[in-house]
């Protein structure tokens, strides 16, 4: 495993998509689109690039394989390490958002010149 990299928005959304259940490639792409309210639409090449990085960092792992209508589906699950990394990133983003909101409220209240 190589040193963990910064978690990008697509990687954050892929990890979030895997929190409740293992998902296969297209299922992850669908869930990411739903989570981002249509803003992030992962192309297949991009999705697998993100999955490769997350797997190399130990944040996701292959779960099982299924064949549906003659097509292979490989499911991916969130690892414990991935869940920890996602939580840390979520807390960091939430802190940033909270500080931004506090400052904006101060500005609206005339606290900033």
């Amino acid at each position: 495993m190589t040193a963990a990299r910064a978690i990008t928005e697509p990687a954050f959304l892929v990890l979030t998509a895997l929190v409740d259940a293992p998902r296969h490639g297209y299922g992850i792409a669908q869930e990411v689109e739903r989570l981002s309210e249509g803003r992030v639409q992962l192309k297949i090449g991009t999705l697998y690039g993100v999955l490769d990085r997350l797997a190399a960092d130990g944040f996701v792992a292959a779960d099982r394989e299924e064949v549906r209508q003659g097509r292979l589906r490989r499911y991916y699950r969130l690892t414990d390490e991935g869940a920890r990394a996602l939580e840390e990133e979520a807390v960091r983003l939430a802190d940033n958002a909270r500080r931004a909101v506090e400052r904006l409220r101060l500005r609206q209240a005339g606290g900033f010149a």
Partner: protein
Amino acid sequence: MSVLEERYRRWLRLLPASYRAEREEEMVSAFLEGARSGRAGHDDQHPRLLEIASVAALALRLRLGGPGSPPGSYLWGESVRLAALLGLVFWTMIGSLYFGQAVLTYAVPADALPDGVMGIGDAGSPERGRLVLAELSSLLWAAGLGALVSGRHRAAKAAALAALVVPQVLVPPFAGGWDSAARWACSVLPAVVTVLALALGHHRDAPPSRLPARRAVRVLAFPVAVGVLLAVVVGVLGAATRAGAGPAGLLLQAWMWLDPTGLACLSLLGVTVWCVARRASGRASGRAAVPQAPAAAILTVPVVLARAGTLPADMTGVIGLAATLQLVVLLACGLTLAAIGMRALRAAGGGPSAARGTRPADAG
């Protein structure tokens, strides 16, 4: 197999065979599921451009791998990244040479130099202003190199692209006509390849480009110092040529080796000798394959094309002889470097897929 599937599989051939063996079926499955529901990239029976671009970008990252990639693709990646670094070092030297020449030509008081050597255009004219700016903009190569060795590869890419484009915008590169355009295209090819190597090699999965501070300073200072020294040499040679001192043939030969292509030829000859010597000592000590030879081989290709595409019209005189000699030296260097590089790549081997750890059997 549908036409859409067949076409998508054709695009997936961009990916390394080992990766395709592991991922092709699930990628096709994911793509076709999206196509059925009208969500993934497809347009009737053609995958959309963005979908193809995402596969191409993935292929590039896999083929020019970073740490953790199979040894073969990692060596390719390191070779391209080293080609970018060596290219930036070379163009920083040329940029410093141009800067030194600009200072000597335009910043020295008019009465300190003989008549007729005060550059193009009148002092203060827009023509001269553009020319001076174009020569100063070549320092952007140094900015690119500085950014790269300090770990800011995005800034390095932007600076290198600006160093390539700005002089062409400020000073029209060719007067017109296909012949003139073709010669210009050949002459800029080495710089274009440097920018491309920088853009392609330093992707998201590439290792950090930051060097230790002292080494970074040395890597930046060396080409700047050589470039400034060359500017002085060019100044002295110019004065000797104007004064008619020394044999004209010898002076013409010297000029041929001091233009960017001539200097690239000398630089590549130096790197080739170094690679051969290192290979000989490496074979004795059993050192692992290194990316220097493939990196220099990558840089040799555009220089050969630049030399071949800008040969003088008259190949019989001294200039023709120098151009022929350069072409022979470049071809010999290119073949030697390619041979050493191929051996290094073969020694690195194909290796297992980068995504091996994601198979269910490996999941833990």
